């Protein structure tokens, strides 16, 4: 066991959203891949299952320091990983899913993080789920690539390795862990992808997922994903200059609205056509109202950013030579 104060090389975070036999397989893979390497620790993120408590006595880390973070209810992967990172003592952080456990080779590959790579994520290959499931994912990630100008094939495998500073610079709230690679690219970090086998191994308790044919998710999920993509688009381009976005959108509403109003007004004066009989006046006014409203939201955004400009660091330093 390592001394608590000494810096560790690696912290392995295992995310456990539900009780699964796959958990034991993750421990095996980690032990097989890492036991002869640098000191590491394992932190189990027990997202509301209660399994972790039973485990703690059995030395599941096989000699490595082992800790459990238990959540009273399910908070989701972002919150769990964020809490894990706060506790982790390693410079490099690995996240592994207990559902669809990674192989020892995949863990080894994650440990190769270094050199010019700051973040490494796995993308699932093969028949990891039914055809329809995979199609849905393809569409979603296609949209994400379009909106963000990145080229990630899969953001939900849960298999990641990153240097601690990446996580410290990027706030992981909501579902943001999924988009960590995209946000990291935005801050100038080098992100690489590598293939992981998609199908769950026998005995992991997830074999039936691969055979699942057509599963429609709840309608709310589709809406959430769409909102996620739009938010990313905005976050990456306009967070520091909200008026550039809202101003452009607002002007395209306001200008036609004003033109319409002016045209109706002139027609009233010249031809005497009564304004009250022209319902299109309402459209003109509506556009004007929407335009002013959108632009003023942009102004509020500018104020928020400006009054907090002390906290903004609009750059990310790679190296300083003093």
């Amino acid at each position: 066991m390592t001394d608590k104060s000494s810096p560790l090389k690696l912290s392995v975070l295992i995310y456990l959203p539900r009780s699964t036999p796959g958990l034991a397989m993750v421990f095996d893979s980690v032990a097989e891949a890492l036991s002869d390497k640098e000191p590491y620790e394992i932190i189990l993120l027990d997202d509301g299952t209660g399994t972790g408590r039973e485990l703690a006595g059995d030395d599941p880390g096989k000699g490595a320091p082992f800790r459990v973070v238990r959540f009273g209810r399910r908070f989701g992967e972002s919150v769990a990983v964020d809490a894990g990172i706060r506790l982790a003592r390693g410079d490099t952080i690995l996240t592994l899913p207990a559902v669809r456990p990674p192989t020892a080779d995949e863990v080894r590959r994650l440990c190769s993080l270094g050199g010019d790579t700051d973040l490494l994520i796995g993308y699932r290959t093969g028949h990891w789920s039914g055809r329809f499931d995979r199609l849905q994912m393809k569409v979603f990630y296609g949209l994400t690539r379009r909106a963000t100008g990145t080229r990630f094939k899969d953001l939900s495998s849960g298999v990641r390795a990153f240097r601690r500073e990446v996580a410290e610079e990027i706030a992981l709230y909501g579902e943001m862990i999924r988009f960590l690679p995209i946000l990291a690219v935005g801050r100038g970090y080098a992100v690489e992808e590598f293939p992981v086998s998609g199908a769950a191994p026998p005995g992991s308790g997830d074999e039936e997922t691969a055979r699942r044919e057509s599963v429609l998710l709840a309608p709310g999920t589709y809406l959430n994903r769409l909102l996620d993509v739009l938010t990313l688009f905005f976050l990456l381009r306009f967070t520091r200059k909200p008026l550039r976005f809202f101003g452009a959108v607002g002007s395209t509403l306001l200008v036609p609205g004003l033109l319409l109003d002016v045209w109706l007004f002139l027609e009233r004066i010249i031809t005497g056509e009564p304004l009250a009989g022209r319902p299109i006046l309402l459209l003109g006014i509506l556009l004007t109202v929407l335009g002013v409203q959108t632009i003023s939201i942009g102004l509020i955004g500018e104020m928020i950013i400006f009054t907090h400009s002390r906290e903004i660091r609009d750059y990310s330093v790679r190296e300083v030579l003093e």
Partner: protein
Amino acid sequence: MDIELSLVIPLWNEEGNARLLYERCRAALERLGRTWELLLVDDGSTDRTWPILASLHRLDGRVRAIRLRRNFGQTAALAAGFDHARGLYVITMDGDLQNDPDDIPAIVEQMDAGFQVVSGWRKDRKENYLKRRLPSMVANRLISSLSGVALHDYGCTLKGYRKDIAARLHPYSDMHRFLPALASLSGARYTEIPVKDHPRHSGASKYGLSRVGKVFFDMIALKLLLHFSTKPRYWFGYLAVPFGLLGALFGIFAAVEAFAPPVDGPQVVFAGGSFLFFYLGFYLFTLGWMAELISASGNFRYGRLASGGGDEPS
């Protein structure tokens, strides 16, 4: 001993200029006879700029090199320089040698005279008239009249800031043009001096006409920030009044129409217009309170600087 001058220079793909830049800056700074440091900020160059900066750092301990992770833009690079600068005066300069290091002594002289911000003015510009000089002339006029800060050339990177004012500026986005205007918020004394402008020594220029649209919205934002950040309720209040009046006007028309036979529907249009305008007036009015809340919860320091001779460098 404290460092007196920090020269901050952002560089982006300037492998052809970096060495010459260093030589000329060193020559100019040494003539001044003060302690100095040179902060070279590599803004995500993809060419050999960084190895050159590293070798300059090994050669001369007064050179500090900062490497950003990717190209974040000139403002962000300047912000990085501001955050790392240790000097009493922070002087910023272009990395492409369009500014002349020989103008630095004149800036220092003005700062010694008590000015907290000294801005360079490229009186005799060497660039394409239609593509660069005309748009920037218009932009300069606009910024000047919007901000009430009387300078001729906001785009010139060669500027000097006293440390206390540099620490209050937190440049983000494309704000570097507006820094003197924002400095005036804290009551900084500013002036400008004519500086030389050279054609690029090496490499291609990195600006184009495409900035015009962005700068337009940035200027509207600047107007709001400069004049209403501390009392936004007025600004939104002023906006709300005309819409409230329009709503009232339409409402009156609707009422008149409603009571004047024949009743065949046109009053609905006026009533609708009235509702929409009233709605917008009310919205803007309440947004003013929201803005007050934001401005009260922020942490920007508007506090005035000790003016004049109080905390002059000795």
